[in-house]
């Protein structure tokens, strides 16, 4: 514990700005993964434990396409589309078979998939870690904003994430697909009574969720080392985020991501050896006070 350092940082403008921005950066990348997770839970009431593996797959696909085309843009695109397809296959042929059963059966299917994907990645891309490298466009000195340091690449990530959030929000609130999705989240049998194919809606949501995870993996690939099992820690953190924000609430996921980002950035100053513990403590406290999460609807 180092409360002196924490107080010092909280009273220094430059430290405050830098750590807040770093919290935001951590939070934004987390949000992309968590948004898909919470979307799938909100509609399908399924906790998708394979979400971390989707993220990993996105990063690896980006690595390969980047290597072939030398284009970061194409790499990210391939990651999003490729993972969306994998998510579709996974949902249609495996996950949809256990929608009716209890949560433990779904957990089992997901776990099997995590094991298989980790090994598949190891077989296809090899056991050693990989690094994708930064696109030339972002190899620029960082910007100084209000005394804080912001790398150009992270500024780009924040903007992209914000655009994606807005698009996601528009899809959910302004399109027919979004209306059906929202209706299906509340009452799936009503939706199917209206002649809408709920199976198709579920597949669509799962694909969208998977796409977001793949996108996050592709976007983050230049600043991550790629290894089999890399989805694991991101899975845990995005879980904390969705639980804190409220399972099923996308706005909650955004709030939760930023909170976790800030806990990380300031926690690493005040409690450098217990940052992980702090996140779980926050999760436990919020669950005790409001089990459905900050912005979740009471179940």
């Amino acid at each position, binding site marked *: 514990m180092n409360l002196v350092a924490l107080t010092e*940082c909280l009273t220094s403008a*430059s*430290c405050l700005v*830098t*750590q807040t*921005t*770093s*919290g935001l*950066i*951590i939070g934004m*990348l987390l949000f992309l993964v968590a948004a898909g997770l919470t979307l799938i839970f909100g509609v399908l009431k399924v906790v998708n434990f394979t979400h971390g593996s989707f993220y990993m797959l996105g990063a690896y696909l980006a690595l390969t396409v980047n290597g072939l085309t030398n284009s970061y843009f194409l790499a990210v695109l391939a990651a999003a589309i490729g993972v969306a397809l994998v998510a579709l296959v996974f949902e249609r042929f495996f996950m949809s078979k256990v929608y009716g059963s209890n949560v433990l059966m779904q957990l089992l299917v997901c776990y099997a998939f995590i094991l298989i994907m*980790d*090994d598949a990645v*190891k077989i296809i891309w090899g*056991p*050693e*870690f*990989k*690094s*994708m*490298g*930064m696109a030339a466009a*972002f*190899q620029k*000195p*960082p910007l100084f904003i209000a005394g804080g*340091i912001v*790398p*150009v*690449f*992270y500024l780009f990530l924040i903007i992209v994430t914000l655009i994606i959030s807005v698009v996601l929000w528009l899809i959910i609130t302004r399109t027919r697909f979004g209306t059906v999705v929202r209706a299906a989240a509340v009452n799936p049998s009503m939706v199917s009574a209206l002649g809408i194919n709920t199976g198709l809606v579920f597949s669509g949501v799962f694909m969208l969720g998977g796409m977001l995870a793949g996108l996050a993996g592709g976007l*983050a690939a*230049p*600043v*991550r*080392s*790629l*290894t*089999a*099992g*890399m989805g694991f*820690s*991101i899975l845990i953190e995005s879980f904390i985020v969705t639980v804190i924000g409220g399972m099923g609430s996308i706005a909650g996921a955004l709030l939760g991501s930023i909170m976790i980002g800030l806990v*990380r*950035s300031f926690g*690493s*100053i005040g409690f*450098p*050896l217990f*940052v*992980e513990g702090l996140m779980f403590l926050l999760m436990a406290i919020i669950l005790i006070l409001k089990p459905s999460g900050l912005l979740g609807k009471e179940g």
Partner: protein
Amino acid sequence: MARKRVDLDRRTVLKGAAAGAAATIFAPNIVAAQSKVIRIGMPTILSGRVAQLGTSSRNAIQMEVEKINAAGGLAGRQIEMVIRDSKGQPQEAARVSRELVNSDGCEILLDAEASSGSFAVQEVAKDLGVLVMHTNSETSSLTADPKIRIPLAFRSCRQGIHDAVVSGAYAAEIAKAKKINRWGTCSPDYAYGRDNTQLFVEYLKHFYPQAEVTMEAWPKLFQPDYTEVITRVLQSKPQALYSALWGGDLTSWVDQANIYALFSQMEVFAINMADYTVLTAVKNLPKGIHSATRYIKTYPNTKANAEWGDAYRARFKEYPTNWSWENWVGIHFIAEASKKANSADGKKIAEAMRGLKIDCPFGADGTVTMRADDQTVIGYAIGWGTTISGEPYVPEVTGAKWDTILQLEAEWKKRNNYT
């Protein structure tokens, strides 16, 4: 033909040419014990994030066992390796090791586990009374602490305390020349990272008392995002930063620190940087990072070392790692001691190994010695240099002085009541 079987069965079993091919795969232990084959069990990590530790250890062992077998094996008995994955979990390492001895008939253990697994294997070896060679665990206490040390356990790899003395001495030289007094550290928060960093600071101050540590950051092992750690370093503006991050964590950290232009703002000492896996993985490798040698073809700058590195690379289509040479040392010590004792018996090999000196491409003077009193290897090549972004990656290496290392190690042992 023997190699083909290995691949077909997807079993990590290596065979000597003279071994009865069909019999040994399914053989109960009795057959193995009576035949001319001697089995050596090798628990290691072949899956998960540090699978490379296992695969690169296995590669080196595969190469060397073939040579040793061609030269007659252990006292006339051909070596057969039985290699198993512990998934990096200590309790699995314990289980696998017990199984290797108890039901696979292994008479010697070559422990290629990371440090936490090595302590579990040590417990098993103590329990079952078999010879064990730790090839990858650098934690000093494993052999230095008399409470943990056992007579049948040896270590064939670098040791934390040696590494720290060398690093402290090198960093102090630079600090003296450039008047670097304010230091920061950024190391993974687990036993290796903590011990390594604490000892480094101790010896940095020993050689350069003006140095003081003004900030410490402790990211978690396998943390994906180092943003908060990097901004903290930049905030407190140390003149130099020391890091014990390694492998994939180090690559992520370098990639992320790069976009903050961290490397242009301070001297960076990353002890595990000069390993080919990291050097080749990082796409935009910054120039001038100080690093200790892990495995590098150019140091020691001898024909034997370069040839071995090339042979490894030609065969496995990848560079050897730090772990590869450490396993080389382990298996050759067993072979040489067996030759000296003219026996394949674990206790006799152990007896012959204490104080044994062997020729070695990775020795500082072409040899390494298994020190008798704590059964750990000394005299291996170690030094520091700075990186460039392509081959040979670390062009100039300042080699360490072993007499300094040994003298300071002795004092360290006394302070810790290890004598």
